[in-house]
């Protein structure tokens, strides 16, 4: 009896081992060939903490704003929808809206009349990331607050969490509202939230953000962690302000006023 049981266990063990060695590598093979690799693209622009300076002195005429906004919205297939279903990645507003805590009743006329450029601040301490239940919004190591449009379930927690109104929700299919679809970048579908990605896709191809390229020096993009970078030089030499710092989100978009 004992002997029989022992023989049985032996055979079972051997066949299990055979089954394993024959089966697992095969099924793995079915998924990924062993020697493919995923690597960063050559010539990628990398940084440790991306930030942007907006030189508001260089944005005086409506064309200055228009050029920059169009560059972004054209590159990223941002639909042109009027009214309260508007989608925006980079847009403008008046001083009291942009800097509500810094405005006073006797503001210099220049500020009262001028528009200011707005975009996602790519906060160091982003509430939108904290509240997103699916991690569709996440923070990359280089500070970019990314959207994974594939994963967004449209719950809009991030919109409630963002104190800067940097996000837009697609109430309907945005594709019909995109003039000249750019085939190199996807569009979005109904029920997804979108926002500026600091042009992560362009940086990976070795290009600067589209708005920066179109700004004629009005926007300076760079690595805040590098003391020798151009953006740090600009920040050293100019007085800058940020939006709603008192909220503790630590925004990385700076304004020279």
């Amino acid at each position: 009896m004992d002997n029989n049981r022992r023989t049985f266990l032996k055979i079972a063990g051997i066949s299990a081992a055979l089954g394993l060695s024959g089966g697992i590598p095969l099924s793995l093979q079915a998924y990924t060939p062993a020697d493919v690799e995923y690597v960063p693209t050559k010539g990628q622009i990398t940084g440790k903490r991306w930030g942007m300076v907006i030189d508001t002195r260089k944005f005086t005429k409506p064309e200055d704003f228009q050029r920059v906004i169009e560059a972004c919205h054209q590159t990223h297939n941002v639909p042109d929808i009027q009214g309260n279903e508007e989608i925006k990645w980079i847009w403008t507003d008046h001083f009291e809206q942009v800097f509500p805590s810094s405005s006073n009743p006797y503001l210099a006329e220049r500020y009262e009349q001028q528009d200011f450029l707005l975009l996602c601040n790519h906060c160091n301490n982003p509430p939108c990331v904290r509240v997103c239940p699916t991690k569709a919004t996440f923070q990359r190591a280089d500070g970019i607050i990314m959207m994974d449009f594939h994963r967004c379930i449209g719950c809009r927690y991030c919109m409630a969490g963002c104190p800067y109104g940097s996000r837009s929700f697609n109430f309907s299919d945005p594709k019909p509202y995109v003039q000249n679809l750019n085939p190199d970048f996807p569009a979005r579908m109904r029920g997804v939230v979108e926002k500026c990605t600091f042009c992560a896709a362009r940086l990976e191809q070795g290009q600067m953000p589209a708005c920066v390229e179109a700004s004629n020096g009005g926007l300076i993009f760079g690595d805040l962690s590098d003391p020798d970078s151009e953006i740090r030089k600009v920040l050293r030499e100019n007085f800058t302000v940020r939006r709603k710092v008192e909220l503790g989100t630590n925004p990385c978009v700076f304004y020279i006023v």
Partner: protein
Amino acid sequence: MYDSGKILTGLIIFLLLITFPFWYNLGQASYEPPDLVLPEDSQQCIEPTQWMRTNHMELLNTWRDMSVREGLTTFVSTSGESMEISLQKTCMDCHTDKVNFCDECHNKAAVSPYCWDCHIAPEEVANGQ
């Protein structure tokens, strides 16, 4: 035995129901792979055809995560060739005929992936849509 008739009838109905897919398919034509319009100017996909046929969805899933979430935007295939991870710029650059390539199989297999809700197929661009 009480109710043996009812039990037997019940069992027979149950057996008929769970084997329905088998006898329903009896005599039906077997699955024929559709005729696909293959790219003209390239002989070979990024990985062997048979492997791509079985695994392209796994590959695309990994591509998406690598590119969107990890920032690794270049794929090096088993043959050592490097290419940009991009549905639009790499896949559709060869497979320019979505209707006669992607859709053929997907329709036949009754799967509707939602890639094209956002990604832009070549003919949409051609139509200036």
